[in-house]
C-alpha cells in the first residue's frame, strides 16, 4: 500500500456569522493550507472535499458550488458525505485518492456555513428523521442526544457534574486556539446553570453553531518527502455505519465506533491503543460525547473514563491529552470543518507546532474521530510521525 503523508494544513477562524460566502471560506482555508507547505494549485492533482447537509448553506448540490473555492476548477473533484462524520472521513477520502495510485497529491477541504440557516440551523435537523415513522413526532437532535446522554450516564453512574467537567476543560483549552470562537473562561457552575435545552443537556453542554473551513494537503510518500522534512503520515483510517433504526440500539456504547477504530488501528498496526496513542481528538459536539467516544476508541475502559478525567489523565500535560485543540466545544463546530480541524490539530501537534496548546514530550501517534448521522456513524484516522 502506498504511504500517504499530510504536508500542510490551514483553516479560517471559526465564527458565528461569517461575512464570507461558503465558497470564500473554502478558498481561505485552501489558500492557507497550500501556503503552509509552499505549494500551488498546479501541484495539486485532485480535490477530495466534504461538507455536511446542503440545507445549512441552502445550496443544492453544494459540492459543485464549492468546487472552485476548494481549488477544484478543471480538476478531479469529489465530495464525500457521511453527516457529522464527514470532517475526518474526508481524510480517508483523500487518503484513498492517493493510496490507490490514482493521484500523487490531493487537497482535502471541508466547509460549513451554518449561519445561512435563519433563524437557526437546528431547524434543518428536523428533516433528518425517518419521514414516516419519526418525523410526525417532530423530534429534534437535542432530544435524541439527551436520550443518549441519559442512557450513558445511567449505565455507569456518571453525573451531570462529571459531564460538565469536559465542557469546562475543552472550552478553557479552546481559548488558546487562535481560530477559536471564544475568549471567555467558563466554570462548572456556568455550565450547570446554563439554560436547559432538553434534560440533561444544558446550553453549555453543547458546542456552538459556527461557520468555517479547514483544509489539509495530502501527498504520496515520494512527494511528501520532497515538500517537507516533517511529513505526518496517515497510518490508518476507518469508518463504520450502524442501522438507521436508531431506536432499536442500546445507546450507551458506540459499537460502530469500536469497529471503525479497529479498522484504523489494524491498518496502523496498533495493538494496544490506550498505551500506543499519545494524543486523542475525539469528536465532542456535546461534552458527554468526548467520554463516550474515548470508550468507543478503546482509549479508556467503559465506566472508568470519569475517573481518568478527574485524575487529569486527559489534560494537556496528562498521560493521554484529550482534545488539546479545545475541540468542538472550545473552538467551534462548523460541522464538517470541525472534524478536519481535528486532523489539522494532530498535524500541528505531531510536528510540535501547536504553540500554547502543544502537548509535552514527543508525541508519535495521534487519533482523531468524527461522528454523525442518527448517532450512527464514525470515522477515525490515526496519524503518526
Amino acid at each position, binding site marked *: 500500500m502506498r504511504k500517504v503523508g499530510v504536508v500542510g494544513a490551514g483553516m479560517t477562524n471559526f465564527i458565528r456569522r461569517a461575512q464570507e460566502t461558503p465558497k470564500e471560506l473554502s478558498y481561505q482555508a485552501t489558500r492557507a493550507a497550500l501556503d503552509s507547505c509552499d505549494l500551488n494549485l498546479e501541484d495539486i492533482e485532485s480535490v477530495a472535499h466534504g461538507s455536511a*447537509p446542503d440545507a445549512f448553506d441552502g*445550496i443544492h448540490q453544494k459540492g*459543485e458550488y464549492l468546487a472552485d473555492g476548494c481549488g477544484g476548477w*478543471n480538476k478531479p473533484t*469529489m465530495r464525500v458525505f*457521511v453527516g457529522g462524520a464527514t470532517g475526518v472521513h474526508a481524510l480517508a477520502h483523500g487518503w484513498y485518492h492517493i493510496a*490507490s495510485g490514482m493521484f500523487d497529491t490531493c487537497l482535502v477541504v471541508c466547509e460549513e456555513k451554518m449561519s445561512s440557516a435563519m433563524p437557526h440551523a437546528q431547524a434543518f435537523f428536523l428533516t433528518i428523521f425517518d419521514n414516516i415513522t419519526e418525523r410526525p413526532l417532530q423530534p429534534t437532535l437535542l432530544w435524541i442526544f439527551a436520550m443518549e446522554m441519559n442512557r450513558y450516564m445511567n449505565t455507569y453512574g456518571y453525573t451531570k457534574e462529571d459531564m460538565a467537567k469536559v465542557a469546562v476543560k475543552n472550552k478553557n483549552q479552546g481559548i488558546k486556539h487562535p481560530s477559536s470562537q471564544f475568549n471567555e473562561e467558563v466554570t462548572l457552575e456556568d455550565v450547570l446553570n446554563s439554560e436547559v435545552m432538553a434534560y440533561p443537556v444544558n446550553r453549555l453542554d453543547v458546542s456552538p453553531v459556527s461557520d468555517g473551513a479547514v483544509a489539509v494537503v495530502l501527498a504520496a510518500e515520494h512527494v511528501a518527502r520532497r515538500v517537507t522534512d516533517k511529513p505526518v503520515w496517515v497510518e490508518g483510517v476507518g469508518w463504520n*455505519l450502524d442501522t*438507521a433504526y436508531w431506536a432499536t440500539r442500546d445507546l450507551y456504547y458506540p459499537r460502530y465506533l469500536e469497529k471503525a477504530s479497529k479498522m484504523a488501528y489494524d491498518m496502523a498496526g496498533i495493538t494496544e491503543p490506550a498505551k500506543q496513542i499519545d494524543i486523542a481528538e475525539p469528536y465532542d459536539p456535546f461534552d458527554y460525547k468526548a467520554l463516550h467516544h474515548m470508550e468507543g476508541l478503546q482509549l479508556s475502559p467503559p465506566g472508568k473514563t470519569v475517573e481518568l478525567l478527574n485524575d487529569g489523565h486527559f489534560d494537556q500535560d496528562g498521560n493521554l491529552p484529550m482534545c488539546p485543540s479545545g475541540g468542538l466545544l472550545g473552538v467551534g463546530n462548523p460541522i464538517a470543518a470541525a472534524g478536519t480541524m481535528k486532523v489539522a490539530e494532530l498535524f500541528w501537534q505531531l510536528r510540535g507546532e501547536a504553540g500554547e496548546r502543544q502537548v509535552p514530550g514527543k508525541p508519535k501517534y495521534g487519533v482523531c474521530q468524527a461522528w454523525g448521522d442518527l448517532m450512527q*456513524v464514525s470515522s477515525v484516522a490515526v496519524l503518526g510521525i
Partner: protein
Amino acid sequence: MKRVAIVGVGYTSFRTTSQDVSYREMIFEAAQKCYEDAGGIHPQDIDAFVASSEDFMEGVSIADEYVPDQLGAVLKPVQSIAGDSMQGIASAMMHIQTGEMDVVAASAFSKASNVSNKNNMVSYACDPIFIRPFNENPYMIAGMEMNRYLYETGATREQCAKVVVKNKYNALHNPVAAYGAKIEFEDVLNSPPMCLPLSYLDTSGDVDGAIVLLLASEEKARQMSKKPVWIKGMGWATDTPNLDTREEGWGDAIYASLAGEKAYRMAGIKAPRKEIDFAEIDDTFSYKELQHLEALKICTRGEAGNLLEQGFFSNQGDFPVNVSGGNLGVGYLHEGNGLHKFMEVVLQLRGEAGKKQLDKARTGLAFSWRGIPTATGVAAVLGIED
C-alpha cells in the same frame, strides 16, 4: 495499479412513478439481484459500500443515514458520495486499489416521482448571490448552452432532434426503459418550447429506479465471476460551477474532455474511436450527446451531427451510442445516471443485453454528466479483454 472488475449487477425497472414501493424497497430489490448475480455473495462478505445521493432530491437532510439497512450494510464501512454515481464507482474502485479491500458495492437510486418542485431545486443549485436572484428557469441554462453549441460547431437543430429519434427508438428494445417511442424528428421540433432552441422532447423525463453494482479486486473477481468486466480507465473533472465565469465551457464540454483524457490515459487508449466499440453517453438534453461525443474525442468538433445523420451512431453503425435508449429513452435517474450508463456497458460486454445486444462489444465507454447547472463529468472505459 491494481485491477478492478465488476462482478455483480442488479437493477429494478425504471418507471415514471412507483407508488407501490419505497426507495428502500427499490434498493433492496436491486441489491438482492446484484448479490445473486455475483454468485450469491452474502453482504457480510462485502468489505465496504459506497452510495451516491443528494439530500434535496431525497427530501432528507442527511441522506447517508438511510443507506445501510436495505443493502445489508449495517455496521460496515459505508459512505456516501454527494455526486454522480459514477463518481461513487470511482470511489469504490479506489477503495480496492489501496489493497485494503477486496469487494465493494456501489449503489444509487432515483425516486424523482416524490419530488414536486424539481425546477426550484435546480435553481437552488445555482449561485445564491449572482444567479439565483434572476429567478431563472433551469432550462434557460440548457437553452443558452444549446444555442452556443450550435453556433460554435455548425451543428443543426434538426441533428439534435435526430438524437432524440434514435435514442427513443433504441429504448423500445429495452424492457426496463420508460420513454421508448417511434417518433419523427419533426415531432421533436414541433414539441412545446422549453427555452429555445430547446424543446420539450429534447429533454429527458424523470424516472424512479435503483441500481447496485459489485466491484472486486482481480483475485476475487476471478473466483466470483466467469465474466468479469474490467475497469480499464476512469476519469472525472469539474469545470467552474459559476455560470457567469464559465468562458469556454458554454459551447464546449471541457469537463468531458478532461474526464475522457484521464480515462483514456489510464486505459492506454490513443485513438478512442478505433479502440472503443460503443458508448453509453450522457444525453440529458439532445445536444448533449453530440457535444459529449466531440469532447470525448469520438469524433472531431462539429462532426457529430453529420455522423449521426449518416447512421454512424445507430445500433448497426460503426460506433453505436446509447443502445439502451440513454436518458432520453430510459429516463433521467438523477444521481443514478452514472450507474445506469456503467451498468449498460457491463451488460453489453457480458453479452447479456438481450434484444439490444451488439455483435461487437469488447471495449465500451460510459460517460455521465451531473446535469444543469453543474459542469462535472465522469468517464469510464470498460473491457473484457485480459
